[in-house]
């Protein structure tokens, strides 16, 4: 499971970084979303990966999953969700006001 998680985080980060470096705001937003998924999985894994273990005191439990990492990742998810919503609204507004979704208006201006 550790291997699967590591590959997942790595693949998401790779795709996220590639997309963030694109010049259109839509690709950048998808890239940011993928990056925040990768980061959330990484934060979640920082508590150690255990299957079927309760995160709080339970009768007869032999081992426990780390509850604090889960609490941290919950906070991180809320923040990244809100930020994605904001950046989508912002990009839409910029697209409507300026007529294109390029992040840098001067680049390639001659071909329009």
């Amino acid at each position, binding site marked *: 499971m550790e291997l699967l998680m590591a590959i997942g985080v790595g693949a998401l980060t790779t795709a996220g970084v590639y997309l963030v470096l694109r010049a259109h705001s839509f690709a950048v937003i998808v890239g940011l979303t993928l990056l925040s998924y990768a*980061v959330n999985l990484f934060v979640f894994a*920082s508590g150690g990966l255990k299957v079927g273990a309760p995160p709080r005191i339970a009768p007869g439990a032999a081992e426990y999953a780390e509850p604090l990492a889960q609490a941290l990742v919950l906070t991180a998810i809320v923040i990244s969700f809100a*930020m994605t919503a904001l950046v989508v609204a912002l990009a839409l507004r910029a697209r409507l006001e300026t007529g294109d979704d390029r992040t840098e208006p001067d680049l390639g201006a001659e071909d329009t």
Partner: protein
Amino acid sequence: MNHWPILPVLLPALTAGLLALANPRPSLARAVSLASSALLLGLAVKLLLMAADGEQRVYALGDWPPPFGIVLVLDRLSALMIALTALLALTCLAYASTGADREGPFFHALFQFQLMGLMGAFLTGDLFNLFVFFEVLLIASYGLLLLGASPARLRAGLHYVVINLLGSSLFLIAVALLYALTGTLNFADLAVKVAALAGAERMLAQSAALLLLAVFALKAALFPLLLWLPGAYAAASAPVAALFAIMTKVGVYAILRVHLTVFPPAAGILEPGLTRWVVPAALLTAAVGALGALASDRLAATVAWLTVMSAGTALAVAGLASAQAVSAALFYVLHSTLATAALFLLAGSIAAQRGAAGDRLQRAPRMAQHWRLGALFLFAAAAFVGVPPLSGFVVKVMLLQASFGGLPGAAIWAVLLGTTLLALLALTRAGITLFWSARRATVPLAGNATALATGAIVVLLAVLAGLSALGGPIKAATDAAAAQLSAPRSYIDKVLRTPGRI
């Protein structure tokens, strides 16, 4: 328990919540926001006096003993930064009350949320809460930046949001790494546990420390992570840009707090040392900032580049990590924050009185308040650059003294003196274009040219003069704060021995 340390976070939080939910009419919102900021300034002075006895005050939320609960820690450094922020906030708000707060809805709620994030970031004793407060202040700053969205502001805003989201991702990765290694995120507990790591775990802690340095460098606009700043700050409205003058200093503060307390130079986590990482980048920042100021074609952009330059200068000296250097850097933070804020506000007033030309550095009709703004600009520029006997001169002597000796010292001297000359040239050129090459015709007085707007700038400049006049006591205060910061043992003991109930 002493409840004072949490009040600077609670007061703006409650005011912001009230303003956002009740959404009162603009004049009432303005009055509430101003009253709350004035109260905050009083509170900040009270905390400053309280912290002056040299004892750290630890506030355990919910009475959970650290490291299990969340703590806020009030020490000399945080009290100093809080006082600076509160003073800056009140003057920016007073200036905004002359019209900028009507550009969009919820200006005052966003402003108070921003203050809450700033206060929390300066007070928190916990890495995850530092992240949360960073997010609070960033989210509020996105809103403030985008108020009255013009296309230029939208484009700059998109860049600003995206680069800060990337910074947040890096921050979380570093937090998760440290949590996986040590099982704690409390600064004091982290410092103890990180120092005890060995082998591969120590190297992971080192990468976490470097990731955090990169994140804070992004906030402080350190080279090469600085290009987001000038566009965003120059596009913001004047009082918002002036408030943002403190935001790069939050990055400086976070580097000082985390990399002197959690990864102190003595522990040797950050190979090959804070100085080697920070000083070269900071010197390049200062140089690029000064060149950018010289190349700008708008006054607000010039001041934004000077903000970059000032963050670089502060970190170049603070990066030496000696108590004397940190003290001089803290004094410079006080000075440069207020000076750049005053220049941002002036740029706003000047732009409002030059008709279509705005604050672009080109020939334009004469301003209605030609003499008044000219005198203020002369004073602010002289104070920023450091014409004796103003505060810029005093603090630059301190910076030069603190960095004397060795190769880093020689580099700092060269860059500090060179960038000061470039800043002087940039401001002189701006002043000549704005005030001396004006056409005869006068633009009629715009709405926001009230005594309050001038008053806000005058207060900032008066405090700058005060920094110079009361240089002795203020230097004693920054000396004490730097000494406290350079000896993290007492901070760690104080936090970890805080009693609580489980």
